[in-house]
């Protein structure tokens, strides 16, 4: 039966069982959510006004940045059209889900969210927060879904170093603030502070979203690969709201034809030059 599950035949059973345990999860979540409800409904008028003003300024700033982004996006598309590149920037449908405050196995980095297949979630769907990529869904029930975070020891995400365009894989380590990048050659150009963005290879995660920031690089000339560690950008242990992303409406596999579908081998190319760097 355990083997059976590896071939994903038991997903429907798990979905049914998740309905059975949902009341328990709801019950455990109840104190937290009522506490939040009380806090919101009992906060004073002045607090709300202050918060409102703060949000207004923030929105203004964000809107200004968005204008610049739109101009850049248009320019980028124009340049790519000149190069005949088949790159697509689509508006991706999004949905905000909330975490259920339940504890899972302490040795797995998994979270439970309060949306399920009734909201058209699907297995393997990427999960983001305001800072970066958090993880992907692994089990979807009708009312709730389980997501695996990028720091789970059995998780790997294809990434790209934003500065140089070097592609590699970031593995989870089991500690909430560390990712491992084991496939970076010693002569590769990696520095502390480099931003890792998702590369979109593998077709699971949307390309171009921030994933992590390099915090330590250890280049030992005796070894083939350098030891690189990164810290996830997303607030994996602090966010309460998460963002679920769907692929853009025109679902052409934009990144698939570029490389054969084995992102594990994509680490071997050295610096592809500075052409992709801004």
């Amino acid at each position, binding site marked *: 039966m355990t083997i059976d599950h590896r071939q994903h035949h038991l997903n429907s059973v798990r979905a049914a069982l998740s309905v*059975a*345990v949902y009341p328990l999860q709801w019950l455990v979540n109840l104190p937290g959510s009522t506490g939040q409800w009380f806090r919101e409904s009992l906060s004073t008028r002045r607090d709300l006004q202050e918060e409102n003003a703060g949000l207004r300024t923030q929105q203004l700033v964000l809107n200004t940045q968005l204008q610049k982004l739109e101009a850049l996006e248009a320019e980028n598309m124009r340049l790519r059209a000149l190069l005949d590149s088949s790159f697509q920037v689509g508006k991706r449908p999004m949905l905000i889900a909330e975490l259920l405050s*339940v504890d*899972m196995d302490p040795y797995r980095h998994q979270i*439970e969210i309060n949306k399920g297949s009734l909201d058209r979630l699907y297995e393997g769907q990427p999960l983001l927060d305001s800072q970066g990529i958090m993880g992907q869904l692994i089990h979807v029930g009708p009312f709730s879904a389980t997501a695996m975070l990028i720091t789970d020891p059995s998780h790997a995400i294809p990434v790209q170093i934003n500065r140089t365009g070097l592609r590699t894989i970031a593995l989870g380590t089991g500690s909430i603030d560390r990712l491992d990048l084991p496939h970076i050659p010693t002569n590769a150009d990696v520095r502390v502070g480099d931003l890792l963005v998702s590369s979109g290879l593998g077709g699971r995660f949307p390309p171009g979203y921030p994933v992590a920031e390099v915090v330590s690089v250890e280049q030992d000339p005796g070894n083939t690969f350098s030891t690189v560690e990164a810290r996830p950008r997303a607030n994996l242990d602090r966010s309460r709201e998460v963002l679920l992303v769907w692929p853009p409406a025109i679902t052409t596999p934009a990144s698939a034809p570029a490389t054969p579908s084995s992102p594990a081998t994509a680490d071997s190319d050295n610096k592809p030059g500075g052409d992709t760097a801004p």
Partner: protein
Amino acid sequence: MNLTRHHGGIFIVLSFAAAMLLTIVPLPDGLRPLRPDWVTLTLIFWCLVLPYRISVGSGFVAGLLLDTLNGTLLGEHALSLSLIAYLCVRLHQRIRVYPMWQQVLMVMVFLTLHQLLTLWIDSVIGRPMPSPSYWLPPLVGGLLWPVIYQLLTSLRINFSIQ
């Protein structure tokens, strides 16, 4: 026993539900590795006290629900809880007459067995070895056994669950 054979089953279910609630209640980070296996403890108790009602089948169902709650491989906890239920039912006449400290030791053995089995399945499917704190819950669970035993016994007597 013949007339009132099945009595108070709802309380058994409720005790399992409470154990599952305690399993997923959020704890502060420092206490998380110490959380005992509430469901296993409850299962051991009922297997010792009512071996003719609660045994392998109940352990299996409880294990499946626990798998869903924990997000582990479906069947992982089910297998190990069924095994523990079997052992408990098998040994219940002996364990019942043990003094408390000896019962605590037995319970610790069962809980360690549970951890060992889940660890074994986890490593078969290629998950890395967890930190040494993985072995703390059986100790905590064993130390909590007298309390749980008293609590569930009083529940059993008050509601005359047979």
